[in-house]
């Protein structure tokens, strides 16, 4: 009996309806948090004593970089669940992630580059953090290309799922690259809750942006998931009812 919720998560009609119901509960708080974070980051936070107003790029760079990694992990875990338990919904979730993750990896790379130019004196350096983030973009692009090359959805799910799972080794490399190697990129200053290295006026807007982007991702995922479920349910009769709404 305690497992019914898990079985319902594997039921397409249930997940389809649930996704539609849940979307606004993530989308509106996401919008509010992002707007508040933007105001806090651009207006309320004081200028950095070394980087001046240039540091404000952090409020778009860090959430983009966080998205690039979180979305990849979500995609890889969903793909693994789909491969192991042959669960259609999990494959549908994995397929929903790719374009979101790829686009925010581009955002992380470009905003990082725009931040690097004034602070490091260069737009690009073949630095471990930058290089491994670029490899992440190639993994997303490979995933998308592989899917679009295979017409059959089930086969595309299996092949691209395997790529997503194998590629996950890159995630800890990106995260720890700044600690393992001598990197231009600074070490993490937020993910150390014991002793944050920022005053609250700088840190709070950043945390709002990170939470806002996370909720925004869930909302996007829920919308895309419904489409991916429909693509995988060729002949189910519930689709007729779902589309009638």
């Amino acid at each position, binding site marked *: 009996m305690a497992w019914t919720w898990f079985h319902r998560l594997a039921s397409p009609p249930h997940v389809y309806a649930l996704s539609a119901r849940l979307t606004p509960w993530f989308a509106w708080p996401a919008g509010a948090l*992002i707007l508040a974070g*933007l105001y806090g980051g*651009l*207006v309320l936070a004081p*200028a950095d004593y070394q980087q*001046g*107003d*240039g540091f*404000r*790029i952090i409020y*778009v*760079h860090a*959430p*983009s970089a966080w998205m690039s990694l979180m979305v990849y992990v979500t995609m890889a875990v969903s793909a693994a669940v789909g491969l192991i338990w042959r669960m259609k919904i999990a494959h549908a979730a994995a397929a929903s992630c790719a*374009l*979101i993750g790829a*686009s*925010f990896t*581009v*955002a992380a790379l*470009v*905003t990082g580059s*725009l*931040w690097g*130019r*004034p602070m490091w004196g260069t737009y690009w350096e073949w630095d471990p953090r930058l290089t491994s983030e670029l490899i992440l973009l190639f993994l997303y692009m490979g995933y998308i290309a592989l899917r679009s090359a295979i017409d059959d959805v089930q086969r595309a799910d299996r092949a691209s799922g395997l790529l997503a799972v194998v590629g996950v080794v890159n995630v800890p490399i990106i995260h720890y690259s700044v600690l393992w190697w001598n990197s231009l990129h600074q070490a993490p200053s937020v993910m150390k809750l014991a002793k944050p290295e920022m005053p609250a006026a700088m840190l709070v807007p950043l945390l709002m942006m990170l939470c806002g982007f996370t909720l*925004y991702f869930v909302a*996007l995922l829920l*919308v*895309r998931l*419904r*489409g*991916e479920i*429909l*693509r995988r*349910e*060729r*002949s189910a009769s519930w*689709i*007729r009812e779902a*589309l009638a709404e």
Partner: protein
Amino acid sequence: MNEFLHMGGYARFVWPSYALTLAIVVLNIEWARRSLARARAEARRRLRNRSAAP
């Protein structure tokens, strides 16, 4: 206001960063909506084709 837009001399790095990220945020909403709309249209077409078949 001018001072705000000037971003302490970093305007040409700060504003493009914000513009790009927000553009990607907005585009993703549009892409997700379109992806769902396309899937719904395809599903409708499949239903129609099947009910039209003998």
